[in-house]
């Protein structure tokens, strides 16, 4: 996807889209509609700085200056029966990622490493369709061990859940549950064929009803059109998640998306701005892929363009920037890290 000719800068019936957004989103706190998000995504690259500036104002007005820091770790890696086309952990693809389990001691160590960065969230992730009894037991033991030794909120991402599993996780004290819709509903069948977008939606509704915070985002750059990207932003807004993690595709060898290009930086940043304008009050988190797509400079631009949360350190199967580098960036930008008991 590339920037359009400035002579065809999108306008809607109310005038220039950023002027409309300033009044609608910044002043009134109402997220953009699908048509309006698309208009932002179609802005020419020369208006990127302006879009990011407005998104930053929106973030500061409606969320504040604090940044929520999170660490994640893979409890169960690889061997997943699902066919999410971006994922190197599917057992259906010829990926170099081999199956592995993390034991409780190493899980606790990972939580300690995360807490040392000042992070308030630590997310335990498993590559599964949904948890079986063995995984639930491992999660239960892991959470108990973390709570005994580390002062941090525990989040989980274990795929699709049954109502019973939702209730169990809530009873374990899981603070937030991540389950990404990944992409627009209309594009989902091009990304996953072994389960539906609606099944994911159902899990998210159960999570919210059980009192856990909802974390739901996706991946930019999986062959979706700009229209579908706008559709996705508005579908997320409809869900009203507490947090939206934004990933940028890392084309992984052996996966059906191995041939796709890494998203372009300007395109990714315009997406960041557009998502903030669709979701003025949500925690919008930089997640995987920013290292390849944005580099160091782009990460700063994103933090000044609507993002108010980051995953620090490594991801599940990929490496991130050293946590210190991100923490130094936040200090340079004079953005305080959210404390454990604060709410954004």
């Amino acid at each position, binding site marked *: 996807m590339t920037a359009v000719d400035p002579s065809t800068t999108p306008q809607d019936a109310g005038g220039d889209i950023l002027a409309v957004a300033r009044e609608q989103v910044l002043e009134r706190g109402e997220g953009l509609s699908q048509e309006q998000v698309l208009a932002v995504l179609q802005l020419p690259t020369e208006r990127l700085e302006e879009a990011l500036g407005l998104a930053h104002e929106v973030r500061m007005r409606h969320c504040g200056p604090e940044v929520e820091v999170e660490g994640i770790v893979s409890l169960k890696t690889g061997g997943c029966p699902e066919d999410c086309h971006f994922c190197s952990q599917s057992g259906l693809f010829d990926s170099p990622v081999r199956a592995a389990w993390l034991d409780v001691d190493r899980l606790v160590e990972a939580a300690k490493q995360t807490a040392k960065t000042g992070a308030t969230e630590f997310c335990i992730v498993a590559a599964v369709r949904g948890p079986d009894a063995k995984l639930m037991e491992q999660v239960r033991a892991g959470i108990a061990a973390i709570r005994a030794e580390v002062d941090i909120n525990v989040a989980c991402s274990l795929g699709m859940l049954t109502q019973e599993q939702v209730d169990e996780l809530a009873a374990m004290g899981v603070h937030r549950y991540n389950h990404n819709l990944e992409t627009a509903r209309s594009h989902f069948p091009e990304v996953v064929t072994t389960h539906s977008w609606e099944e994911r939606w159902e899990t998210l509704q159960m999570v919210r009803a059980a009192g856990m915070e909802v974390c739901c985002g996706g991946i930019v750059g999986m062959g979706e059109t700009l229209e579908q990207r706008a559709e996705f932003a508005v579908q997320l807004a409809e869900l009203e998640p507490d947090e939206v993690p934004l990933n940028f595709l890392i084309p992984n060898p052996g996966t059906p998306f191995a041939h796709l290009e890494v998203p372009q930086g300007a395109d990714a940043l315009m997406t960041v701005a557009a998502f903030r304008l669709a979701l003025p009050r949500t925690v919008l988190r930089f997640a995987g892929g920013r290292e390849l797509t944005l580099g160091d400079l782009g990460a700063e631009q994103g933090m000044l363009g609507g993002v108010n949360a980051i995953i620090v350190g490594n991801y599940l199967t990929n*490496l991130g920037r050293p946590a210190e580098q991100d923490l130094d960036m936040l200090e340079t930008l004079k953005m305080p890290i959210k404390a454990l008991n604060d709410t954004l």
Partner: protein
Amino acid sequence: MEPSADPVERPFCAWCGAARAEGDHTACERRLATVDPPRHCPVCARRMVVQVDPVGWTARCSRHGESAGTHGFRR
């Protein structure tokens, strides 16, 4: 263990598993330097069992044992 750069001792690309002497591994090296831990043993090219944690990675080859590192991997 920080893997040696010696192409005789470690003849395989830790990212794609192909012989380092064959083909262009510039893209592989970029991935290893930015977002990927080693996936193939640089000695024998076997796929390794890799665990990534918030500050580093460990990679175990069934024949050549375990290596570990922090962010980024230099062959």
